[in-house]
């Protein structure tokens, strides 16, 4: 009887010992950190691999995922810009635990602190920026300012997190004024179009004028050579006639006269009259 009791108590002691040892063995995944508490106080932290600690109730542990990016969203919010316009902003925030001890001791709900800090930073940063800049080229500046400001606030709160990314998922004018904003961008397009079509006009008008100018000069050159060669022709004819006339003036003149009358026809009257005499023209 007493032998059985003894064996039972030895067995129980062994079981408790094995369970205690098993409790003290920790397999820590990569991307995890483990915070070891001894009687509730933080004794040490350890990273991935096989780790040992004293069995409960002497020591206990808490695992924290440190590698993974945690993702939170602010949801769409209507905020006031620095020039008192309203814009809708929706942010996606990725953060990671950078200091496991600060993370477990800092706040009861670190994620809520991250969201609220990012929201507050967004309201602050937007209240310093103008809507035109935001709607055209300011998006990346908003993103980087936001991240900088939110991280500085989180650092001051010592909750052991680092922002990996603050992504502007949506940044747009509120629905009631979207068409007005769209009209501005189409007006910007119209400005380009008007200038381009004027450029197109210029690039046809100027070459046309250049062509016309070249043509005018060429025509003038042609006319000029015609005038000169006409004169040369006339003079050549004159020289020929003069030579003939020098040889026999009467017959040349007679021939020229005959040619003239042949060209004009016979129906022309030539009247010789001394100055001061009256001439009676034939009536019809």
């Amino acid at each position, binding site marked *: 009887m007493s032998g059985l009791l003894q064996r039972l108590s030895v067995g129980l002691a062994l079981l408790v010992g094995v369970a205690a040892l098993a409790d003290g063995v920790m397999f820590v995944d990569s991307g995890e950190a483990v915070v070891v508490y001894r*009687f*509730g*106080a933080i004794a040490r932290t350890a990273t991935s691999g096989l780790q040992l600690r004293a069995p409960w*109730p002497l020591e206990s542990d808490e695992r924290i995922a440190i590698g993974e990016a945690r993702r939170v969203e602010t949801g769409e919010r209507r905020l006031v*810009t*620095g*020039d008192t316009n309203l814009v809708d902003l929706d942010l996606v925030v990725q953060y990671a635990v950078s200091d496991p001890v600060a993370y*477990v*001791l*800092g706040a*009861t709900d670190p994620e809520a*602190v991250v969201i*609220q800090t990012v929201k*507050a930073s967004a309201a602050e940063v937007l*209240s*310093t920026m103008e*809507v035109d800049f935001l709607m055209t080229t300011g998006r990346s500046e908003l993103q980087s300012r936001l991240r900088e400001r939110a991280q500085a*606030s989180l650092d001051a709160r010592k909750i052991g997190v680092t922002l990996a990314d603050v992504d502007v998922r949506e940044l747009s*004018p509120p629905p009631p004024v979207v068409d*007005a904003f769209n009209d*501005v961008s189409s007006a*910007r397009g*119209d*400005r380009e179009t*008007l200038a381009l*079509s*004027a450029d197109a006009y*210029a690039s046809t*008008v*100027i070459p046309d*004028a250049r062509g016309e*100018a070249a043509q*005018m*000069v060429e*025509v*003038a*050159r042609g*006319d*000029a*050579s015609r*005038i000169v060669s006409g*004169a040369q022709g006339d*003079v050549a004819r*004159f*020289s020929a006639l*003069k030579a003939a*006339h*020098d040889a026999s003036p009467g017959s040349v*003149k007679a021939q*020229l*006269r005959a040619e*003239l009358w042949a060209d*004009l*026809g016979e*129906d*022309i009257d*030539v*009247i*010789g009259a*001394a100055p001061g005499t009256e001439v009676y023209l034939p009536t019809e």
Partner: protein
Amino acid sequence: MKWSWLIVALGLALPAASIYTLDAREIAVVTSFGAPVKTVTEPGLQLRAPWPIHTVQRFERRAHLLNIEPTELLTRDKKNLVVEAFVLWRVADPLRFLEAVGDAETAEARLSDLVTSRIAAGLGQQDFDALISADRGYAPLLPPQVLAEVAPISSERLGIEIQDIRLGHLGLPLQNEQSIYERMRAERKRIANAYRSEGEEQAITIRARADREAAELTSAAERQAANILAKAEGQAAGIYAGAYAADPQFYRYLRTLDGYRAILGEGDTLVLDSRDGLFEELR
């Protein structure tokens, strides 16, 4: 025999009842029949007198996030704003906290009232344009005196440390949104018109410049053409002059015949001076 068991049991139970642990995430007050004995801030193994002599009251040591519901308030220049705020607070003096508040829920209700009224007072001392302005720089939206006022009150009266108070959202009441939209639309219209008239201005300038360049090109060509013709005519005149010099009389005669050929037609009558040799020549 029975008594010895009791003594052993008590010998084990008394130390067990006198030892407790405090978690790193907690802060505690030891009380004795309701009266505070000491504040415990060091985590780990701690000693106390066994119950019912000593009782340990534990509180959260980590920071709590308190969201303040959206509140509509007025700036100094009487413009409405809708603000949301949040407060990060934690128990700093558990004894005072225990006496003044007792639990987190009550604490948050008290803080909420305190912070809301101070934010209203703080923003009420600022003009809307000073609060929302592109040249304001990086300053926090909330006037710093709000934290400066709330922190000592919370610490002295509630045993609470205020780590931060921030405006999480700054918006406009719905009825004001409409007028903002009107203004935004008008402003967009103005910008769009400016773009379009800028485009027209550019287009007109480009066209006018092109027209001018074209006119310059053609007028230069006209001038050049006129020069060419004038030169040719000069040359021709020189050529004719040579012929004339050779025999002026005969030359004039031929030119006269050419002249008649050019001007006379059927049925015309030509009257000439009978003393002129040309009359004889023509007859």
